[in-house]
């Protein structure tokens, strides 16, 4: 088992700097979430807006510290630093990129922060841009000149290029055209691309979750409400109560 989260709770309190805040006064985004992810597996995560999906991804990526619960990485307790080292989160659109740099310069910069040389990044990214439907010219455009879809693809490229052990995808196909979304979906299923990474895949499309994921977790009000193994599209839709 690569990663195991036990009883993860995250409450966003309304508080001042010196007041710890009252838990009852805040928003309980995650409420005792327990899950495990196997290397090489693709696990779907579905749920209505505000059910805690993004918060869970951010906790597992080490970006957000939980209030309680433990996370084990390879059976050892992992803190934020270990999680940031093991995981990569592809988030919405152009978040977290330098608008004045080109897409390529951004990829190289974040690769270097992960300890990768420019040559290593180029080798890792060699085939991916074309597969994702990016043009060579897109890579040399300034980031703020990219379309939303292209920015989303660069975000995926950044996450894939790190070859993380834990790949966290937050609605990765949002903003992609149908062909690019299909290309991404087929890319994700290729072991050569994702390696032995455990993938946690947030998506609002039951059909895509059924196609891509061996297992789907349904999150409701910060809790795992259902765990579906090898589910069909209608099982996911039903479990979500129409609000994927």
């Amino acid at each position, binding site marked *: 088992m690569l990663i195991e989260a036990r009883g993860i709770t995250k409450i*966003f309190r309304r508080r001042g*700097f010196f007041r710890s805040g009252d838990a009852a006064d805040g928003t309980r985004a995650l409420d005792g979430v327990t899950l495990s992810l196997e290397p090489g597996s693709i696990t779907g995560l579905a749920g209505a807006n505000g059910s805690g999906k993004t918060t869970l991804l*951010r906790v597992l*990526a*080490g*970006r*957000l*510290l939980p*209030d309680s619960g433990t996370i084990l990485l390879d059976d050892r307790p992992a803190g*934020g*630093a270990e999680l*940031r*080292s093991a995981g990569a*989160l592809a988030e919405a659109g152009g*978040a*977290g*990129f*330098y*608008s*004045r*740099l080109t897409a390529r*310069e951004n990829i*190289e*910069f*974040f690769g*270097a*922060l*992960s*300890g990768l*040389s420019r040559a290593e990044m180029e080798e890792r990214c060699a085939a991916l841009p074309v597969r994702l439907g990016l043009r060579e010219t897109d890579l040399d455009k*300034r980031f703020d000149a990219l379309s939303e879809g292209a920015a989303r693809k660069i975000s995926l490229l950044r996450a894939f290029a790190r070859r993380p052990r834990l790949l966290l995808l937050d609605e990765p196909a949002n903003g992609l055209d149908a062909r690019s979304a299909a290309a991404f979906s087929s890319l994700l299923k290729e072991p050569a691309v994702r390696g032995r990474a455990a993938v946690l895949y947030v998506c609002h499309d039951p059909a895509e979750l059924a196609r891509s994921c061996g297992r789907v977790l349904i999150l409701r009000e910060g809790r795992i409400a259902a765990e579906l193994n090898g589910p069909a599209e209608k099982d996911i839709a039903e479990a979500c109560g129409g609000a994927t």
Partner: protein
Amino acid sequence: MIRQIFAFIRKDFLVEKSYKVSFALGAVSTVTGMAVFYFVDKLFGRSFSPYLAEYGSGYFAYVFAASAFFGYIGTGAGSYSEKLRAEQLQGTLEAALSSPVRPAVFLTALTAWNFAFATFELALYALAGVLVFKLDFGAANLPALAAVALLSAASFAALGIFSSCFVLLFKRGNPAAWVLNNFEGLLGGVYFPVAVLPLWLGWISKLLPISYAIRAMQLALYKGAGFTELRTELLALFAFSCVLLPLSVKAFSLALEKARRDGTLGQY
């Protein structure tokens, strides 16, 4: 670690270069700064003041060297909060800190470009001092100057890192930067020697690393003072660095952890 620091330097250079007007104005401001000295020189000439006797230099030579040096070590005090705020506003702070990069390395990398540029500026000032203003740096004790610069930069970097903790937690409103901007120049002996200050202000100035930094730099530059003559100043700067630097990095780590716990790292 080296790769991460160079990645920041390259990124900052590319970003700076992309703002062509600002980049050009930055270079021009170095020249206008020197023009100010030219007119100070015209006004005061090479007149000596009894307060400056121990440094063996006139007012112009004193203020020229102190201002250039203050500009250099001030990079540490101002750049951390400025760069951190810029990363917040661009929405890149959380992404950069989501990489496996340790806080101490991140802090070094964050301002590496600023220090590189400040070093270049300092070299330009030194060149102009010799070629344009005919200042005599012949007596300079270079090893002692290097030690003063290193320890001063470390002390000021620590103050800058403390200041960046406020930016991390409160985003805007930075009392540490306010204190640094308003009191270091006044009490540190940049524009006049500390001996000019009333006794009680002189005592306060002893609590600031800048006072030791400027005095040691002037003595090493114009009187050729070495490690023995400068031991009080060097020990004071060493003590400031040894105490403040680890404390400031620890404070930054704690502030970072609080921001990660509150989920405010990506906010601005």
